[in-house]
């Protein structure tokens, strides 16, 4: 909302016809003929006087008290319809069979892994899990990145790690917190990270990764490397202060970062209409002075193309871009959630049936002759076996050695930690019955 008052109107009550309460168009063509910045008493209807205050960008003075409630909603870009048919031939993806099928295969693998690990949690074998159900198309965004583009995720982007080559063993080891976990068993499941794959370790606090992504992008810009940062988050996290902090500083310091919002309609049980009142997250990007795209988040090719274009802007112009991918969270928030408590099972089933990212991609592949039922079954069954194999192997492994508890707090152990470590060792030695370390790897 935005209100401006003319000088004359201050002296008396504002005549109602001078107040405009209807939505204004997003683009506004204005030509300022007057060079006098101080002239506010303009009788010439065509003359637009520019505002020169240091805080103004391109504003012009007006005698109309405009109370704007909304801008024109931003359109949602899509390439395919829900049947996987490309709507505009000009947008037909120019990709190889290998490239396209890899994306779909990874979506399938992710799906299979999610189902098995979700069940594992239900059986008490791992402590916690989060699925990607309904949002698998975000893998299309990973496909548009360079392998050295740094990823800062939230927690529902394991598919990007999978796409980059994180192995099933590596996923399982983290979920089981065993001695092979890259994270050394310290975090809850799904808090993956990999330096080799340029995927920053996930942390539970929401949106903290956003300003970090801005800083990381600034470092990349200074290094001269032709890379960008890809930062994922949900529409709920976009309410956090860190979101605003991040976009603002990315814009002012001109960082090559793509902020990718997965707007899946829910933040645990909180629906989007209780999360924000404006036109989604995309409308905020323009407010921060950055390039903004809204896409159909269930459309692999739309997500792919949007990321491609965003990446070009980020890498070539060193400017941040906001992408809002509209999608639907089919699964529960996590294994600690039962979404039937706040939405009908029918609503979920309807989404699965009418707008399914996997189905859309599969149908597109089949239309190209690059996929069929046989390949589907074959891939699903081999991946299922592979997941179960990794899973069984991970389950058998021990947890990291107890002494790992004290490492990496600092680069080197500090005196207080050395003392605390010694104290624990003595305690374990003195009361072995109370401190069973048989499930932990041996000390080096």
């Amino acid at each position, binding site marked *: 909302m935005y209100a401006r008052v003319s000088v004359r109107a201050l002296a008396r009550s504002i005549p109602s016809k001078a107040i405009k309460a209807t939505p204004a168009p997003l683009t506004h063509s204005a030509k300022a003929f007057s060079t006098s910045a101080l002239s506010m008493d303009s009788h010439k209807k065509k003359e637009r006087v520019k505002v020169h205050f240091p805080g103004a960008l391109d504003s012009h003075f007006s005698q109309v008290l405009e109370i704007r409630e909304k801008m024109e909603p931003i359109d949602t870009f899509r390439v395919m319809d829900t049947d996987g048919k490309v709507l505009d031939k000009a947008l037909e993806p120019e990709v190889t069979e290998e490239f396209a099928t890899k994306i779909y295969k990874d979506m399938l693998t992710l799906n299979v892994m999610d189902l098995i690990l979700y069940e594992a949690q239900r059986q008490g074998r791992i402590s916690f899990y989060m699925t990607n159900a309904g949002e698998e198309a975000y893998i299309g965004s990973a496909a548009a990145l360079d392998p050295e583009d740094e990823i*800062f995720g939230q927690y529902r982007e394991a598919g990007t790690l999978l796409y980059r080559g994180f192995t099933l063993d590596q996923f399982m080891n983290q979920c089981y917190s065993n001695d092979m976990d890259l994270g050394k068993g310290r975090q809850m499941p799904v*808090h993956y990270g990999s330096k080799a794959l340029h995927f920053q*370790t996930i942390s539970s606090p929401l949106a*903290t990764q956003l*300003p970090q992504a801005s800083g*990381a992008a600034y470092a990349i810009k200074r290094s001269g490397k032709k890379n960008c*940062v890809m930062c994922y988050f949900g529409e709920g996290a976009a309410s956090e202060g*860190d979101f605003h902090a991040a976009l603002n500083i990315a814009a002012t*310091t001109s960082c090559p970062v793509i902020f990718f919002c997965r707007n899946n309609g829910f933040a645990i049980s909180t629906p989007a209409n209780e999360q924000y009142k404006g036109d989604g997250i995309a409308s905020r990007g323009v407010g921060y002075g950055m390039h903004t795209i809204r896409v159909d988040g269930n459309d692999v090719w739309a997500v792919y193309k949007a990321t491609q274009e965003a990446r070009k802007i980020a890498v070539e112009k060193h400017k941040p871009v906001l992408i809002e991918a509209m999608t639907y969270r089919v699964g529960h928030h996590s294994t600690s959630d039962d979404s039937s408590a706040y939405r009908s099972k029918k609503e979920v089933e309807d989404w699965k049936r009418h707008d399914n990212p996997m189905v859309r991609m599969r149908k597109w592949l089949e239309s190209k002759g690059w996929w069929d039922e046989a390949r589907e079954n074959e891939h699903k069954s081999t991946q299922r076996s592979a997941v179960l194999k990794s899973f069984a192997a991970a389950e058998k492994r021990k947890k990291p050695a107890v002494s790992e508890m004290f490492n990496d707090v600092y680069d080197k152990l500090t*005196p207080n930690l050395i003392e605390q470590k010694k104290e624990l060792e003595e305690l374990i030695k003195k009361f072995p019955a109370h401190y069973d370390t048989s499930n932990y790897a041996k000390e080096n």
Partner: protein
Amino acid sequence: MSVSLLKNPRLASTLASASKTLFHQNMAVKNFHTSLKSHYAATNSPPPAEGFLPGVANSKLIKHTHHDALRNPELAGVANGETKKMNTFQAVNDAMSIALATDDTACVFGEDVAFGGVFRCTMGLSEMFGRDRVFNTPLSEQAIAGFGIGMAAMGSTAIAEIQFADYIFPAFDQLVNEAAKYRYRSGGEFNVGGLCIRTPCGAVGHGGHYHSQHPEAHFAHTPGLKVVVPRSPIQAKGLLLASIRDRNPVIFMEPKILYRAAVEMVPVGDYELPLGKAEVLTQGTDLTIVGWGAQLYVLENAIQIAQKKMPGLSVELIDLRSILPWDVETVCNSVNKTGRLLIAHEAPKTQGFAAEIATTVME
């Protein structure tokens, strides 16, 4: 202000009353803190933003001469070099200048740093190193901290400024939940060792609630962070360079009242002072006193007052320098010798950092 004492109630009350007296306006022994009234009367101008502490200039803890400064064994590396008269903000400026000159990835950023900073700590840096390396950020501490973490996560050196320690709290989540835990939670895959947060702290007299805080206790409770508080220009330069180069995120709290008040002959070369190591300022046998930052000058004065009342009183004064990790060994060795410990700090007594020191020594 917190005063913890372990033995000898008579000594306790003497020192306690001496310390309290210092914060009242008129004192018989040396006007250590000049009252606002007398400042106005003397100069006809308002007090400077960073406060006014003329007593520091008379302190024996300050190294007034070239030789005095270089006698310090910790400065052996620059013992043959030049020294230059610098106050604390100039010393801090010098440290950052050296950091920027010796590390291509280093950047300095925060609110108002580009024109030189509200306390002049960043004077000349953006002109010398460029606006891409020394730049202003929007007014958001969480942005500053998060941005710094991101830079450091990519292996760069990020020297972030939080304009007043009182305003560090919007960045608390980023510092405690992210920076401190970055290395640990990633199993060592990533770290933000290149991050250093500098922030002016401490009372100036007129600062009120929000320009006077000394929040070391809030951060001391966060493993993974280091917290450092310098007492003088020589210390500030060496400790800041060490903090910037240390491979862990460090919060460097600069007592703002010392920016102008403390002036020393500071080595112009590149030198570091050790983190995690306290410094024994005066050797003694009757009592160990531990403090940090500007409080050391208050303690010095308190000791002088006490020595007038108890001739022959021998006090071992220790500057802790690092709050986290803190030098347990030096303090305990001293207390083993003297048998008595007194700690004083600006921050509130209840659950202040003195409690940690007192408990550890007791254990």
